[in-house]
């Protein structure tokens, strides 16, 4: 890394004066944000399961919180990959599981159920973002269905294929 930092450009190399339109659109940037969020939340759930369980009134379910953490990290890594759509889809599936779990906790006869209700609201909000992101990614990056164009008229051999097969000079 140090070597790379020292590999200075030549003083004459063109330098950026002003930056223009680029390849990253809003859904791509949102997917990255969600990916990092997923990894952060996953680390919290994985290494702070006891604290999370106490806050939400889910004592005894630490193993499940850790499993959710591992799932979050996995989908976060996928969101940061060159094809983030499957990662965001995995997040949506994970959101559904989280909503089901928190809905149960939010109805418990426990003074901490307010925390669970807040968490449920947050997850619902994030789910909306996940769905918007997935729709945006699909609209921007998916290949159109169908066979595509037919290029069978593009041989590249102006004198024909038979001539090309005999052109070994």
């Amino acid at each position, binding site marked *: 890394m140090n070597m*790379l930092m020292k590999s200075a*450009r030549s003083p004459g*190399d063109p330098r950026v*004066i*002003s930056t223009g339109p*680029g390849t990253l659109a809003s859904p791509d940037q949102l997917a990255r944000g969600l990916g990092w969020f997923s990894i952060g939340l996953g680390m919290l759930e994985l290494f702070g399961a006891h604290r999370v369980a106490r806050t939400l009134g889910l004592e005894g379910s630490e193993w499940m919180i850790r499993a959710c953490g591992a799932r979050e990290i996995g989908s976060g890594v996928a969101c940061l990959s060159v094809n983030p759509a499957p990662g965001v889809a995995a997040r949506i599936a994970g959101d559904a599981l989280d909503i089901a779990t928190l809905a149960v906790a939010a109805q418990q006869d426990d003074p901490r159920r307010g925390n669970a209700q807040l968490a449920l609201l947050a997850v619902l909000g994030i789910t909306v973002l996940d769905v918007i992101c997935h729709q945006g990614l699909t609209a921007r990056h998916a290949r159109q269905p169908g066979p595509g164009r037919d290029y069978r008229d593009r041989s*590249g*051999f102006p004198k024909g294929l038979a001539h090309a097969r005999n*052109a070994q000079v």
Partner: protein
Amino acid sequence: MKALVWHGKQDIRCDQVSDPGIEDPRDAIIKVTSCAICGSDLHLFHNFIPAMKNGDIMGHEMMGEVVEVGSEAKGKLKKGDRIVVPFTIICGQCDQCRRGNFSVCERSNRNKEMADKVYGHSTAGLFGYTHLTGGYPGGQAEYLRVPFADATHIKVPDNLTDEQVLFLGDIFPTGWQAAAHCDIEPTDTVAVWGCGPVGQMAIRSAILLGARQVVAIDCIPERLSMAQAGGAITINFETESVIERLNDLTSGKGPEKCIDAVGLESHVSMGQPDTLLDRAKQAVMMESDRPHVVREMIYVCRPGGIISIPGVYSGLVDKIPLGIAMNKGLSFRMGQTHVNRWTDDLLRRIEEGQIDPSFVITHTARLEDGPEMYKMFRDKQDSCIKVVLKP
């Protein structure tokens, strides 16, 4: 001037940058008239090639008109000359250049110290590529400084269009070298994995070099149709077994010659579990490249055959069955293209009408539209196979 600039993973922008100037007496400046987006640009776009830096100008397939010449290049170039610029920068004087091994020129990599440490020994400088190969600004721009310009150029005649000669700088000689590395004999079956631009050139090169049959393997219908036009028998690996079809086409013996025109980002599919594992490892940086095609070639190639790899690999791969390769006596030939070793012959073939490489161009756009064209090419939208940009 305008240029397509790398700002990070999947982040290429059309920026305003300062103009290049002559820095060395052997330099020349060209006004770029045409440039193209290459499959290996996508590896940089995805940040799979290490040592890119924010602000690097992309592009290594370009041509144009000479507008300024350094004092020591004046014997070979003059203002107004029309040249294609090979993607490998060559001094033309070192031991390797004298042997025709231009892609491993000993003098053109300005980050030689770093490359020596990473690669063991430095390779040539390349335009618009990683800083391991010099970090030279690329040609997806309005102007380009060409270092060692007295050697690093291919003069082209005015009667040929840009589209006919542009690919002399990379994909045509790359496909040609891949086929030449196969030492093709008239009885040979040549199997080509990947029907992108380099694969298409490799298919036609194998035909011109006299292969008995050429088999093209991909899963994108429009690419397969273009391969068929070039004389290949096609295999869609999503609908049929590559190994069974290749054995059927070769009386159960396998192809004598195999060409990997895919490289480090091989297709990931549920039907090929090793590709899923590779993808997962690549995501968590346990492996830099996805070598499914190399594994399949080693398995299916006829004993005593040749495996030729023009596809770009960047670093470390896992689970290569070297024992199978060793016991089958396979030969491996690979490398960045020694462009100028082949260009005199290839230019002659274009002039004689044996081949017209412009067949591969499916999209032409302005330089300003470059970022959108990167996305279209990467996502294989609108049947995109090759994009040419006009600065």
